[in-house]
Protein backbone atom coordinates (compact mmCIF):
# COMPACT_ATOMS: atom_id res chain seq x y z
CA UNK A 1 0.00 0.00 0.00
CA UNK A 2 2.75 2.40 0.99
CA UNK A 3 4.60 1.77 -2.21
CA UNK A 4 1.53 2.34 -4.31
CA UNK A 5 0.87 5.67 -2.63
CA UNK A 6 4.48 6.77 -2.93
CA UNK A 7 4.46 5.82 -6.57
CA UNK A 8 1.30 7.77 -7.24
CA UNK A 9 2.70 10.85 -5.54
CA UNK A 10 5.93 10.66 -7.49
CA UNK A 11 4.21 10.33 -10.83
CA UNK A 12 1.65 13.04 -10.09
CA UNK A 13 4.27 15.51 -8.94
CA UNK A 14 6.35 14.76 -12.03
CA UNK A 15 3.33 15.73 -14.10
CA UNK A 16 2.73 18.91 -12.14
CA UNK A 17 6.36 20.02 -12.18
CA UNK A 18 6.23 19.99 -15.95
CA UNK A 19 3.64 22.77 -15.82
CA UNK A 20 5.01 25.00 -13.10
CA UNK A 21 7.97 26.57 -14.94
CA UNK A 22 6.17 27.67 -18.10
CA UNK A 23 7.26 31.20 -18.84
CA UNK A 24 5.34 32.39 -21.88
CA UNK A 25 1.72 32.94 -20.95
CA UNK A 26 -0.74 33.42 -23.79
CA UNK A 27 -3.67 35.74 -23.51
CA UNK A 28 -5.56 33.43 -25.82
CA UNK A 29 -4.53 30.40 -27.82
CA UNK A 30 -7.57 30.28 -30.04
CA UNK A 31 -8.96 32.86 -32.42
CA UNK A 32 -12.41 32.72 -33.95
CA UNK A 33 -12.58 34.96 -37.00
CA UNK A 34 -15.60 36.05 -38.99
CA UNK A 35 -14.39 37.96 -42.02
CA UNK A 36 -16.84 40.00 -44.10
CA UNK A 37 -18.00 38.98 -47.59
CA UNK A 38 -15.42 41.02 -49.42
CA UNK A 39 -12.45 40.62 -47.07
CA UNK A 40 -9.33 39.26 -48.70
CA UNK A 41 -7.67 38.22 -45.46
CA UNK A 42 -8.55 37.41 -41.87
CA UNK A 43 -6.07 38.46 -39.21
CA UNK A 44 -5.65 37.03 -35.72
CA UNK A 45 -3.48 38.45 -32.92
CA UNK A 46 -2.08 36.13 -30.31
CA UNK A 47 -0.69 38.07 -27.37
CA UNK A 48 1.86 36.61 -24.98
CA UNK A 49 3.72 37.68 -21.89
CA UNK A 50 6.87 36.26 -20.36
CA UNK A 51 5.97 35.68 -16.71
CA UNK A 52 9.15 33.76 -15.91
CA UNK A 53 12.40 35.19 -14.65
CA UNK A 54 14.51 34.30 -17.70
CA UNK A 55 14.35 35.53 -21.27
CA UNK A 56 12.57 33.18 -23.65
CA UNK A 57 13.64 32.87 -27.25
CA UNK A 58 10.98 32.04 -29.83
CA UNK A 59 12.83 29.74 -32.17
CA UNK A 60 10.21 29.12 -34.82
CA UNK A 61 6.67 29.97 -35.82
CA UNK A 62 5.17 27.53 -38.25
CA UNK A 63 1.71 27.62 -39.82
CA UNK A 64 -0.15 24.48 -40.84
CA UNK A 65 -0.85 25.70 -44.33
CA UNK A 66 0.70 27.97 -46.89
CA UNK A 67 -2.39 30.15 -46.78
CA UNK A 68 -1.53 31.34 -43.29
CA UNK A 69 1.47 33.49 -42.58
CA UNK A 70 2.55 34.30 -39.08
CA UNK A 71 4.59 37.37 -38.23
CA UNK A 72 6.47 37.65 -35.00
CA UNK A 73 6.93 40.96 -33.20
CA UNK A 74 10.17 40.11 -31.43
CA UNK A 75 12.34 37.06 -31.22
CA UNK A 76 13.64 37.14 -27.67
CA UNK A 77 11.18 37.98 -24.95
CA UNK A 78 12.66 39.44 -21.77
CA UNK A 79 11.06 38.67 -18.40
CA UNK A 80 7.82 40.60 -17.95
CA UNK A 81 7.80 41.64 -21.57
CA UNK A 82 4.75 41.19 -23.80
CA UNK A 83 4.41 40.77 -27.50
CA UNK A 84 2.20 39.25 -30.13
CA UNK A 85 2.13 36.93 -33.08
CA UNK A 86 0.03 38.12 -35.97
CA UNK A 87 -1.41 35.39 -38.14
CA UNK A 88 -2.79 36.35 -41.51
CA UNK A 89 -5.10 33.94 -43.24
CA UNK A 90 -5.51 34.46 -46.97
CA UNK A 91 -9.12 33.74 -47.85
CA UNK A 92 -8.59 33.33 -51.58
CA UNK A 93 -11.50 31.30 -52.89
CA UNK A 94 -11.85 29.14 -49.84
CA UNK A 95 -15.23 28.47 -48.34
CA UNK A 96 -16.81 27.28 -45.14
CA UNK A 97 -15.11 26.85 -41.80
CA UNK A 98 -11.33 26.79 -41.95
CA UNK A 99 -9.27 25.47 -39.07
CA UNK A 100 -5.56 26.25 -39.11
CA UNK A 101 -2.87 25.84 -36.51
CA UNK A 102 0.29 27.76 -35.81
CA UNK A 103 3.03 26.01 -33.91
CA UNK A 104 5.28 28.24 -31.84
CA UNK A 105 8.52 26.75 -30.61
CA UNK A 106 10.64 28.28 -27.87
CA UNK A 107 13.86 27.41 -26.10
CA UNK A 108 11.90 27.11 -22.84
CA UNK A 109 12.35 23.45 -21.93
CA UNK A 110 9.17 23.35 -19.84
CA UNK A 111 6.97 24.30 -22.77
CA UNK A 112 8.91 23.88 -25.98
CA UNK A 113 5.90 24.04 -28.29
CA UNK A 114 2.58 25.87 -28.17
CA UNK A 115 -0.16 25.32 -30.69
CA UNK A 116 -2.27 28.32 -31.56
CA UNK A 117 -5.58 27.69 -33.27
CA UNK A 118 -7.16 29.89 -35.87
CA UNK A 119 -10.71 29.28 -36.96
CA UNK A 120 -12.13 31.36 -39.76
CA UNK A 121 -15.74 31.13 -40.85
CA UNK A 122 -15.83 32.36 -44.41
CA UNK A 123 -19.21 33.72 -45.43
CA UNK A 124 -20.76 32.10 -48.44
CA UNK A 125 -23.34 34.39 -49.96
CA UNK A 126 -24.49 31.78 -52.47
CA UNK A 127 -24.32 28.01 -52.29
CA UNK A 128 -24.37 26.55 -55.77
CA UNK A 129 -25.24 22.86 -56.01
CA UNK A 130 -24.33 21.04 -58.06
CA UNK A 131 -21.66 23.33 -59.36
CA UNK A 132 -20.75 20.86 -62.10
CA UNK A 133 -23.38 19.45 -64.42
CA UNK A 134 -22.53 17.12 -67.25
CA UNK A 135 -24.09 15.06 -69.95
CA UNK A 136 -22.15 11.90 -70.81
CA UNK A 137 -22.05 9.92 -74.07
CA UNK A 138 -25.23 7.98 -73.36
CA UNK A 139 -27.26 10.88 -72.00
CA UNK A 140 -30.10 12.66 -73.69
CA UNK A 141 -29.68 16.40 -73.55
CA UNK A 142 -32.61 17.09 -71.24
CA UNK A 143 -32.46 20.19 -69.04
CA UNK A 144 -30.79 19.98 -65.64
CA UNK A 145 -31.37 22.10 -62.58
CA UNK A 146 -28.86 23.91 -60.39
CA UNK A 147 -29.98 25.15 -56.98
CA UNK A 148 -28.63 28.40 -55.58
CA UNK A 149 -29.15 28.94 -51.85
CA UNK A 150 -28.81 32.42 -50.40
CA UNK A 151 -27.25 32.97 -46.99
CA UNK A 152 -30.17 33.92 -44.71
CA UNK A 153 -28.27 36.96 -43.44
CA UNK A 154 -28.31 38.68 -46.82
CA UNK A 155 -31.05 39.68 -49.13
CA UNK A 156 -30.43 38.94 -52.78
CA UNK A 157 -33.15 40.28 -55.07
CA UNK A 158 -32.15 38.34 -58.11
CA UNK A 159 -29.26 36.60 -59.75
CA UNK A 160 -27.85 37.03 -63.23
CA UNK A 161 -26.48 34.01 -65.04
CA UNK A 162 -24.27 34.20 -68.11
CA UNK A 163 -22.81 31.27 -70.01
CA UNK A 164 -19.47 31.24 -71.79
CA UNK A 165 -21.00 29.04 -74.49
CA UNK A 166 -23.93 30.45 -76.43
CA UNK A 167 -25.54 27.05 -77.01
CA UNK A 168 -26.15 26.64 -73.28
CA UNK A 169 -29.36 28.43 -72.35
CA UNK A 170 -30.23 29.22 -68.78
CA UNK A 171 -33.41 30.26 -67.03
CA UNK A 172 -33.51 31.58 -63.48
CA UNK A 173 -36.57 31.21 -61.28
CA UNK A 174 -36.82 32.27 -57.63
CA UNK A 175 -38.34 29.66 -55.34
CA UNK A 176 -41.35 31.30 -53.65
CA UNK A 177 -41.04 31.86 -49.88
CA UNK A 178 -37.51 30.55 -49.84
CA UNK A 179 -34.16 32.21 -50.12
CA UNK A 180 -33.38 30.10 -53.11
CA UNK A 181 -33.13 30.27 -56.88
CA UNK A 182 -33.31 27.50 -59.45
CA UNK A 183 -31.27 27.66 -62.62
CA UNK A 184 -32.48 25.46 -65.45
CA UNK A 185 -29.63 24.58 -67.80
CA UNK A 186 -30.71 23.68 -71.34
CA UNK A 187 -28.27 22.47 -73.97
CA UNK A 188 -29.43 23.47 -77.46
CA UNK A 189 -26.69 21.91 -79.52
CA UNK A 190 -25.19 18.44 -79.86
CA UNK A 191 -22.39 16.81 -81.80
CA UNK A 192 -19.45 18.70 -80.32
CA UNK A 193 -17.78 18.53 -76.93
CA UNK A 194 -18.79 21.52 -74.87
CA UNK A 195 -17.12 22.88 -71.78
CA UNK A 196 -18.75 25.98 -70.47
CA UNK A 197 -18.85 27.92 -67.30
CA UNK A 198 -21.84 29.74 -65.88
CA UNK A 199 -21.16 32.97 -64.08
CA UNK A 200 -23.69 33.55 -61.34
CA UNK A 201 -23.86 37.14 -60.14
CA UNK A 202 -25.98 38.08 -57.16
CA UNK A 203 -27.74 41.44 -57.27
CA UNK A 204 -27.43 42.83 -53.79
CA UNK A 205 -28.49 45.98 -51.98
CA UNK A 206 -24.97 46.26 -50.66
CA UNK A 207 -22.55 47.29 -53.33
CA UNK A 208 -19.70 44.88 -52.96
CA UNK A 209 -20.15 41.31 -54.00
CA UNK A 210 -18.40 38.58 -55.85
CA UNK A 211 -19.39 36.13 -58.53
CA UNK A 212 -19.97 32.42 -58.24
CA UNK A 213 -19.52 29.78 -60.88
CA UNK A 214 -21.00 26.53 -62.09
CA UNK A 215 -19.50 24.41 -64.84
CA UNK A 216 -21.08 22.49 -67.68
CA UNK A 217 -19.64 19.62 -69.69
CA UNK A 218 -21.32 17.91 -72.63
CA UNK A 219 -19.95 14.83 -74.38
CA UNK A 220 -20.04 15.12 -78.18
CA UNK A 221 -21.93 11.81 -78.36
CA UNK A 222 -24.80 13.00 -76.16
CA UNK A 223 -28.04 13.20 -78.18
CA UNK A 224 -30.86 15.69 -78.29
CA UNK A 225 -34.02 14.12 -76.90
CA UNK A 226 -36.58 12.99 -79.48
CA UNK A 227 -39.25 15.63 -79.94
Amino acid at each position, binding site marked *: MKIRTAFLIVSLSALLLGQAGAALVWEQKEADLHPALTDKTAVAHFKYKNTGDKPVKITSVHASCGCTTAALAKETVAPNESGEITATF*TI*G*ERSGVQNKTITVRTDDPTEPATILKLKATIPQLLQVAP*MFVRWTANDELNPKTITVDVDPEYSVEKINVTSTDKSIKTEVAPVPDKKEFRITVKPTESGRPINASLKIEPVLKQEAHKSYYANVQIDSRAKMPAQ
Partner: protein
Amino acid sequence: MRISLVRQLLLLLGLAFLPAIGQAVYYRNSISWAQPPVDSAPVSLAQTESWGGSVLWLDARPDEQFVRRHIPGALQLNEDRWDELLRAMLVQWSPTRKVVVYCSRESCHASHEVAERLRKEAGLTNVYVLQGGWEEWETAHR
Protein backbone atom coordinates in the same frame (compact mmCIF):
# COMPACT_ATOMS: atom_id res chain seq x y z
CA MET B 1 -8.20 -11.98 -3.43
CA ARG B 2 -6.54 -13.50 -6.49
CA ILE B 3 -8.36 -13.56 -9.77
CA SER B 4 -7.33 -16.38 -12.07
CA LEU B 5 -5.49 -15.43 -15.24
CA VAL B 6 -8.30 -16.63 -17.49
CA ARG B 7 -10.81 -14.52 -15.60
CA GLN B 8 -8.51 -11.49 -15.80
CA LEU B 9 -8.25 -11.93 -19.55
CA LEU B 10 -11.99 -12.27 -19.98
CA LEU B 11 -12.61 -9.30 -17.72
CA LEU B 12 -10.24 -7.02 -19.67
CA LEU B 13 -11.49 -8.20 -23.05
CA GLY B 14 -15.07 -7.75 -21.91
CA LEU B 15 -14.61 -4.39 -20.22
CA ALA B 16 -13.07 -2.91 -23.35
CA PHE B 17 -16.26 -3.75 -25.22
CA LEU B 18 -18.41 -1.37 -23.22
CA PRO B 19 -16.85 1.96 -24.20
CA ALA B 20 -16.14 0.58 -27.68
CA ILE B 21 -19.82 -0.11 -28.25
CA GLY B 22 -20.69 3.28 -26.82
CA GLN B 23 -18.31 4.99 -29.21
CA ALA B 24 -19.50 2.90 -32.14
CA VAL B 25 -23.10 3.90 -31.40
CA TYR B 26 -22.02 7.53 -31.24
CA TYR B 27 -20.37 7.21 -34.65
CA ARG B 28 -23.02 4.95 -36.18
CA ASN B 29 -24.29 7.40 -38.79
CA SER B 30 -21.04 9.05 -39.70
CA ILE B 31 -19.11 5.96 -40.65
CA SER B 32 -19.23 3.60 -43.57
CA TRP B 33 -19.37 0.18 -41.98
CA ALA B 34 -19.33 -2.11 -44.98
CA GLN B 35 -16.97 -0.40 -47.39
CA PRO B 36 -13.96 1.81 -46.98
CA PRO B 37 -14.79 5.44 -47.68
CA VAL B 38 -13.42 5.15 -51.23
CA ASP B 39 -13.67 8.83 -51.76
CA SER B 40 -11.20 9.85 -49.12
CA ALA B 41 -8.79 7.17 -50.26
CA PRO B 42 -5.21 8.13 -49.70
CA VAL B 43 -3.12 6.53 -52.39
CA SER B 44 0.53 5.53 -52.47
CA LEU B 45 2.89 6.61 -55.22
CA ALA B 46 3.38 2.97 -56.27
CA GLN B 47 -0.36 2.59 -56.69
CA THR B 48 -0.64 5.69 -58.89
CA GLU B 49 2.18 4.38 -61.07
CA SER B 50 0.20 1.22 -61.71
CA TRP B 51 -2.66 3.40 -62.99
CA GLY B 52 -0.43 4.84 -65.70
CA GLY B 53 -1.85 7.46 -68.01
CA SER B 54 -5.33 7.57 -66.55
CA VAL B 55 -4.07 9.68 -63.64
CA LEU B 56 -4.95 13.36 -63.67
CA TRP B 57 -2.47 15.00 -61.29
CA LEU B 58 -3.64 18.05 -59.40
CA ASP B 59 -1.17 20.31 -57.62
CA ALA B 60 -2.82 21.91 -54.59
CA ARG B 61 0.24 23.89 -53.50
CA PRO B 62 0.47 27.68 -53.74
CA ASP B 63 1.26 29.18 -57.16
CA GLU B 64 4.94 29.91 -56.55
CA GLN B 65 5.68 26.33 -55.58
CA PHE B 66 3.90 25.03 -58.66
CA VAL B 67 5.86 27.40 -60.86
CA ARG B 68 9.16 26.23 -59.37
CA ARG B 69 8.52 22.54 -60.08
CA HIS B 70 5.65 20.11 -60.29
CA ILE B 71 4.79 16.61 -61.43
CA PRO B 72 4.94 16.62 -65.25
CA GLY B 73 1.49 17.07 -66.70
CA ALA B 74 0.00 18.14 -63.39
CA LEU B 75 -2.69 20.79 -63.42
CA GLN B 76 -2.95 23.41 -60.75
CA LEU B 77 -5.90 23.47 -58.40
CA ASN B 78 -5.52 25.46 -55.21
CA GLU B 79 -8.04 27.35 -53.17
CA ASP B 80 -6.43 30.73 -53.76
CA ARG B 81 -7.78 30.77 -57.30
CA TRP B 82 -10.35 28.02 -57.06
CA ASP B 83 -13.00 29.16 -59.58
CA GLU B 84 -10.62 29.82 -62.44
CA LEU B 85 -8.41 26.77 -61.87
CA LEU B 86 -11.36 24.44 -61.40
CA ARG B 87 -12.81 25.53 -64.72
CA ALA B 88 -9.55 24.73 -66.50
CA MET B 89 -9.26 21.44 -64.69
CA LEU B 90 -12.78 20.27 -65.56
CA VAL B 91 -12.02 20.75 -69.25
CA GLN B 92 -9.27 18.12 -68.92
CA TRP B 93 -11.31 15.88 -66.69
CA SER B 94 -13.31 12.90 -67.88
CA PRO B 95 -15.14 10.23 -65.87
CA THR B 96 -12.55 7.59 -66.77
CA ARG B 97 -9.66 9.50 -65.22
CA LYS B 98 -8.43 9.06 -61.68
CA VAL B 99 -7.82 12.37 -60.00
CA VAL B 100 -4.83 12.40 -57.63
CA VAL B 101 -4.30 15.55 -55.58
CA TYR B 102 -1.02 16.36 -53.87
CA CYS B 103 0.45 19.08 -51.70
CA SER B 104 3.93 19.58 -50.26
CA ARG B 105 4.27 16.69 -47.86
CA GLU B 106 2.45 14.12 -45.79
CA SER B 107 1.39 16.60 -43.15
CA CYS B 108 -0.11 19.28 -45.39
CA HIS B 109 -3.88 19.62 -45.62
CA ALA B 110 -4.37 21.44 -48.91
CA SER B 111 -4.67 18.22 -50.94
CA HIS B 112 -7.31 16.85 -48.60
CA GLU B 113 -9.28 20.07 -48.73
CA VAL B 114 -9.15 20.25 -52.51
CA ALA B 115 -10.17 16.58 -52.81
CA GLU B 116 -13.04 17.17 -50.41
CA ARG B 117 -14.34 20.12 -52.43
CA LEU B 118 -14.05 18.20 -55.70
CA ARG B 119 -16.24 15.50 -54.21
CA LYS B 120 -18.71 17.67 -52.40
CA GLU B 121 -19.07 20.61 -54.73
CA ALA B 122 -18.28 19.16 -58.14
CA GLY B 123 -19.61 15.70 -57.32
CA LEU B 124 -16.54 13.93 -58.72
CA THR B 125 -15.71 10.39 -57.68
CA ASN B 126 -12.35 8.69 -58.15
CA VAL B 127 -10.58 11.45 -56.27
CA TYR B 128 -7.47 10.44 -54.35
CA VAL B 129 -4.86 12.11 -52.21
CA LEU B 130 -1.20 11.23 -52.77
CA GLN B 131 0.44 9.98 -49.58
CA GLY B 132 3.62 11.86 -48.82
CA GLY B 133 2.76 14.53 -51.38
CA TRP B 134 5.29 16.28 -53.59
CA GLU B 135 8.12 15.36 -51.23
CA GLU B 136 7.43 11.66 -51.84
CA TRP B 137 7.31 12.10 -55.61
CA GLU B 138 10.49 14.15 -55.65
CA THR B 139 12.42 11.59 -53.59
CA ALA B 140 11.30 8.81 -55.92
CA HIS B 141 12.24 10.70 -59.09
CA ARG B 142 15.63 12.02 -58.13
